[in-house]
């Protein structure tokens, strides 16, 4: 009897911890071998056959098609530089410069990977349409209502993720966080 109870306990714990860890890893993601710069994280290996098993499981679950390494690299951020989750009802500024690339795009997504609903039907910005400062740096304001300059509409999404994709770039598997890979700062401004 004690043996049976013990066995049941073992199996219950195994199921709970094993499946729990898998669920957590595929939903939240484990940044194995990723490049983290400030609030941004990229997994350049996801665009190659050298993708790690965790990222592979996560992609199979989400159904996304990762950018191929000969195409570009995607950096994503779910929170600002101070670690606060990005809130679509707040003003959030994305400012600075990016690593060298032919061009880049920035997009805000909800949890399921859909673009954010907003009154103007605008879902992202490209580096080619940006207003820039004299030194080449830029400031983008992600906010629910129109802002002067570069405005990225966030609708009223409670939580969103920013994805900055660098296309035709040297940033890749060999890249480390450092001076050659400056990513823009993400700062939270006014909040209702």
């Amino acid at each position, binding site marked *: 009897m004690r043996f049976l109870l013990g066995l049941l306990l073992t199996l219950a714990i*195994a199921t709970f911890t094993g499946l729990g860890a898998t669920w957590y890893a595929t939903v939240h993601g484990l940044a194995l071998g990723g490049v983290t710069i400030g609030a941004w994280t990229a997994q350049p290996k996801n665009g190659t056959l050298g993708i790690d098993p965790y990222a592979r499981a996560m992609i199979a679950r989400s*159904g996304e*098609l990762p950018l191929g390494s000969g195409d570009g690299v995607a950096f994503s951020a779910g929170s600002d530089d101070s670690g606060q989750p990005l809130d679509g009802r707040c003003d959030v500024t994305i400012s600075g410069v990016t690593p060298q690339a032919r*061009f880049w795009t920035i*997009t805000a997504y909800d949890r*399921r990977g859909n673009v954010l609903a907003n009154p103007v039907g605008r879902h992202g910005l490209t580096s080619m349409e940006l207003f820039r400062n004299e030194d080449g740096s830029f400031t983008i304001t992600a906010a629910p209502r129109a802002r002067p300059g570069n405005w990225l509409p966030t609708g009223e999404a409670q939580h969103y993720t920013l994805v900055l994709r660098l296309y*035709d770039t040297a940033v890749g598997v060999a890249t480390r966080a450092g001076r050659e890979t400056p990513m823009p700062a993400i700062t939270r401004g006014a909040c209702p």
Partner: protein
Amino acid sequence: MMAWIAWALGGVLLGGVVHLATILVLPMTASRDSFSRLEPVTAVNQMTLLPQPTPAGSVVPFMDPAFATAVCRYDLTDAPLKLLVGVAPSYTSLTFYTRQGLAFYAINDRAAARRTIELDLMTPAQRASVQDDEEVTAADRLIVESPMPTGLIVVRALAAEPGDLPLVRGILAGAQCRPQPTQQ
């Protein structure tokens, strides 16, 4: 008491095995991976222009809304594939994915000498049979080898401004992928 702790420790260890096993098996059983999502909306060995992502959803998640996207779901069992893609004004890229959604090759329009990207996709076996009789033309032919007979070719073209999107989608609508029987 000791016995219970031993049972619990055994459970945690077994949990680790369960975790690793499910991580490795999951990609093979996923029913909502990119290939499964694209299967109902694409035809085999034909190029399909995907709708732009909307807040209500998109064929695959995390699509870049600045891009027009076309997909060719390929099957090389019978013959290699010929690909012809007109280059959009700003940027065009081709990414090749295996059936499991792993990117095994990607090129962009810098590799295109003219305003068209032209290449052949084949299995290693098909390539081996081509090389013998077509050595002369091999130099100016771009050949990509697919590690598996089935997979996806995703063509992405940038609209630098939202106003460019209709033009870019028009260019991608003309992209072609079609089986190319080898001449015997």
